[in-house]
């Protein structure tokens, strides 16, 4: 079974939009979380999770199994997604 692709994004971030568009164009199914639209408690929890994974608060963060891609990087995405 393929890994679930998850993207942590900001609804206003142009790089996040590009990453979502790239995944859609490649017919990759993904679960997106717009962190800025979460309620305060949930946002705090998710930001802690992101900081633990990446050491910072930069967006987008794409998680594919144990692989993490920070920022809009099509070459890295192709590699981790086997495209």
């Amino acid at each position, binding site marked *: 079974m393929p890994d679930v692709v998850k993207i942590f994004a*900001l*609804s206003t971030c*142009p790089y996040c939009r590009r990453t979502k568009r790239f995944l859609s164009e490649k017919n990759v199914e993904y679960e997106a979380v717009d962190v*800025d639209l979460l309620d305060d408690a949930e*946002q705090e929890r998710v930001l802690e999770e992101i900081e633990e994974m990446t050491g910072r608060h*930069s967006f987008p963060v794409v998680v594919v199994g144990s692989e993490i891609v920070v920022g809009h990087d099509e070459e890295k995405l192709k590699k981790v997604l086997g495209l």
Partner: protein
Amino acid sequence: MTDGPPARVFCPVCSARFPPKEDVAEGKLVRCSVCGQLLVLRAGNGEWSGERYAQLTDDEIRDRVNGFAGLRDYHFSEMKEEILEGLLAKRDAFGDFYCPCRVEHNSDYQCPCKPTRGGDVERHGKCHCGLFLKGMKRNRSALAI
């Protein structure tokens, strides 16, 4: 108000009190030398303050980022239009032109954000969201040939 140029004008965008470069008068337009915001001068309470020109409009943020880039001799990312769309989305969702690439929405992150006003572009070559890029230095010897 006393005669002569005032010591400072308060900018409501970046909260700086900056020295205006020219004579001031009620209703005159001046540009904040710290964040690039265009301001309508207002006298009151013994000091000059600025009212945001075209507040919260597309024109305001376009003029501000162009003004800031001009003041610092920065140039823009090829993603300028997408980043401006993000700034407008931030205004619609959170009330003002906060950096679209940050989760925070408070006055420190009004575009240009506090780290950018404080020299991040000089240090890192670009601001956090990549809107402002460090300008290329002119090669004077090459120009002289």
